[in-house]
């Protein structure tokens, strides 16, 4: 039987940690969440030799064991409790060989926690090209831990790294403390050591600093540490300053004769030249907008074809299943509930993949850090942060992965506002709704001969989403109060060519997140909607059945299309169903917005996922062969008239009011669920749901009243 043990990978951001993780595990990865928190937990199988396999966990990038963001907190949590299921037997510390000084800070903290560490000097190729000479043997000797030079991107040094991990597992070498921790707070450290029966000074010192934020401590223990701290006047800030300065002194001494820089680093010089252009006062912003425009265009152009393929594939499956399955309620469930749910999930994958392709490239090259740098000043005005740019841009595809990417924002207030406003960004689910509605009232004309009028209106809707996100942020800034100061400290990594395997894995992981997080909700909602739209009070349903049974038997002689009859019956059944009843129930409330009960049904059904609007419309207007034929839906909607007044249902005012409603309302259960998890409570998603929907209602009301 194989021996099983845990290896943790830890390091600063931008050290190529993910690349190393990928090189060590290949595609043998599992992504989940750490229990209780929503930080992504990436694990993989690490085969060390024939009879030794480890579980490798990728800890979120961190600069030290003093965490600032939810992501960074994880490392502290795991390394501070031997009982944690992820507590490592060996820790691999990944450092950027071109930037050793700052990178080694974390290493010295881990050594002082008496963890068996292996130091992986990554990006050795870049270091060599840049004229940085590192005496690996001497470095290992001085630090007292195994040091392995690796270049993760082309798998150099991986076997040696594996050997070092095995060695540290079987015969760990644990160097003595790098600095004298005991002196910072002797009484506090001694008392905590006694209380917890531990003999490590740094572990006790860490507890004194972080007890209030560690989930694994009971309240009783937290109180005990607090009391010890108060008793001895423990000054967290001063001791941390002393610790950090001492560590850097130690590092400077270590590096004094082990690292030599022969010439100014070529990469760095090139990077500075690039920065002069890419963050230039005028060109910098210009280039950013051109890139953004290009990304935007590509999302729509490149995903068109795969989306058609997916759509047609589902029509094919649907036809096939209709043909082979026996008619009945189960078949209806599969064809009317499960299949549309699945296609509703998969149809968005191409756009998500294309967007994350670009985001991954921009992040991997180091350009995204510059965007963050350039946008911070603007974002700050609206209660956001430069780092909100990635979530906001991701929000164009889907709010779910976008909101999750807000985890890198250290400041809680900035992060909360980012989470709150991201759903305003126009996501892919709104696109089919906008496309249909715009085609109803905006003529397919060109302005100046080349600008599509419909395209311009669509762009205006995206702009509206962005502007409202900013305004919402500005409003929230006034209401949310926090003690913690907003700050912005971010490394600007050297520009590098993107590592395509990383890009590929990022796209794959984001797509998987979408399918797992948003997908299951969309599927569940689709099934619930099917139930609501299929069943209704039985006496009404029976009446319809009888009526149509009679009609079809009477009409056999007349040349009446059977399928037309079927569609009419379907529409009448929808009207009598629970969904229909709901639509009628809310009609008085939505009348001032210009909607009738049919639109009411669509509002009800698309409450959980916006894109359901189009499918519902096609069922209501009894389109034959289901809602995949947009043109037919469009024609039917254009002809629709109010049976009492005879006026057109979809007037300009009604359509505009609908678009505004869909732009603002929080009609997405998946977003609700993800906000619930990311904010650890029901409060914020509820506030979001109510304020957004109330605002959508008021705005749609205003638009309708103004236009009609």
């Amino acid at each position: 039987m194989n021996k099983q043990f845990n290896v943790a990978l830890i390091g600063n951001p931008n050290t190529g940690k993910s690349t190393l993780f990928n090189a060590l595990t290949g595609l043998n990865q599992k992504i989940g969440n750490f229990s209780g928190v929503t930080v992504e937990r990436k694990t993989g199988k690490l085969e060390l030799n024939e009879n030794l396999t480890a579980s490798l966990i990728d800890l979120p990038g961190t600069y030290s064991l003093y965490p600032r963001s939810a992501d960074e907190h994880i490392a502290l949590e795991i390394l501070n409790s031997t009982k944690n299921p992820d507590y490592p037997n060996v820790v691999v510390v990944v450092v950027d060989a071109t930037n050793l000084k700052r990178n080694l800070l974390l290493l010295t903290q881990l050594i002082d926690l008496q963890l068996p560490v292996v130091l992986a000097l990554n990006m050795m190729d870049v270091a060599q090209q840049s004229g940085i000479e590192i005496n690996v043997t001497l470095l290992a000797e001085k630090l007292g831990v195994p040091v392995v030079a690796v270049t993760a991107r082309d798998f150099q040094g991986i076997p040696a790294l594996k050997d070092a991990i095995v060695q540290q597992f079987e015969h760990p070498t644990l160097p003595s403390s790098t600095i004298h921790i005991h002196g910072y707070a002797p009484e506090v450290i001694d008392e905590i050591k006694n209380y917890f029966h531990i003999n490590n000074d740094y572990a006790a010192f860490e507890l004194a600093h972080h007890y209030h934020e560690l989930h694994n401590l009971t309240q009783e223990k937290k109180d005990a540490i607090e009391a010890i701290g108060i008793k001895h006047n423990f000054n967290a800030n001063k001791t941390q300053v002393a610790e950090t300065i001492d560590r850097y002194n130690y590092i400077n001494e270590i590096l004094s004769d082990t690292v030599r820089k022969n010439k100014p680093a070529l990469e760095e010089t090139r990077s500075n030249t690039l920065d002069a252009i890419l963050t230039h006062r005028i060109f910098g912003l210009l280039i950013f907008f051109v890139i953004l425009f290009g990304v935007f265009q590509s999302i729509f152009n490149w995903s068109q074809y795969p989306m058609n393929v997916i759509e047609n594939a589902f029509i094919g499956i649907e036809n096939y299943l209709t043909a082979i399955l026996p008619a009945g309620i189960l078949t209806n469930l599969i064809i009317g509930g499960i299949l549309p749910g699945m296609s509703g999930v998969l149809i968005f994958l191409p756009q998500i993949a294309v967007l994350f392709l670009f985001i991954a490239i921009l992040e991997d090259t180091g350009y995204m850090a510059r965007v963050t740098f350039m946008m911070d000043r603007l974002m700050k005005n609206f209660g956001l942060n430069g780092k909100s740019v990635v979530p906001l841009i991701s929000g164009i595809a889907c709010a779910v992965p976008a909101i999750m990417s807000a985890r890198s924002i250290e400041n809680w207030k900035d992060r909360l506002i980012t989470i709150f406003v991201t759903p305003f960004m126009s996501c892919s689910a709104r696109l089919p709704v906008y496309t249909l509605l715009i085609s109803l009232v905006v003529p397919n004309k060109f302005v100046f001969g080349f600008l599509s009028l419909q395209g311009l209106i669509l762009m205006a809707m995206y702009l509206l989403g962005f502007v409202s996100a900013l305004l919402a942020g500005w409003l929230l800034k006034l209401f949310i109060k926090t003690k913690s100061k907003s700050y912005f400290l971010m490394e600007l990594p050297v520009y590098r060519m993107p590592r395509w395997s990383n890009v590929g894995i990022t796209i794959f992981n984001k797509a998987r997140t979408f399918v797992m997080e948003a997908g299951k909700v969309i599927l569940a909602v689709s099934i619930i909607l099917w139930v609501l739209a299929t069943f209704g009070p039985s006496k009404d349903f029976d009446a319809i059945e009888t009526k149509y049974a009679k009609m079809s038997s009477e009409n056999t002689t007349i040349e009446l299309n059977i399928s037309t009859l079927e569609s009419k019956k379907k529409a009448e059944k929808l009207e009598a169903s629970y969904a229909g009843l709901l639509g009628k129930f809310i009609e008085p409330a939505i009348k001032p917005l210009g909607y009738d009960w049919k639109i009411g049904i669509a509002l009800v059904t698309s409450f959980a996922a916006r894109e359901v609007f189009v499918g519902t419309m096609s069922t209501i207007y009894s389109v034959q062969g289901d809602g995949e034929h947009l043109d037919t839906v469009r024609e039917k909607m254009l002809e629709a008239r109010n049976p009492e007044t005879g006026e057109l249902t979809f007037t300009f005012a009604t359509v505009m009011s609908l678009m505004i409603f869909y732009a603002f309302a929080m009609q997405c259960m998946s977003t609700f669920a993800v906000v619930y998890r990311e904010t650890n409570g029901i409060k914020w998603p509820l506030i979001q749901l109510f304020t957004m929907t109330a605002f959508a209602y008021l705005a749609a009301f205003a638009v309708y009243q103004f236009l009609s």
Partner: protein
Amino acid sequence: MELRKLTDIEIGTVATIDSFTDEETSILLLEMGCLPGESIEISNIAPLGDPIAIKVSGYKLSLRKKEAATILVR
């Protein structure tokens, strides 16, 4: 030599970090390698005038002017 705020030096001038005026911010700065005695240089400024990018401890760090102003250099 006279102490100045980091925000008062010109782009490209190399200075030496002397001390910090805000304890809370200084912890973060220290961790990121801004140590007393370390040389520091303003590398470039964001298009909208804030934040700024500095070269310190062998890499490039960006920070807001508000934070940079707490670093005293000589």
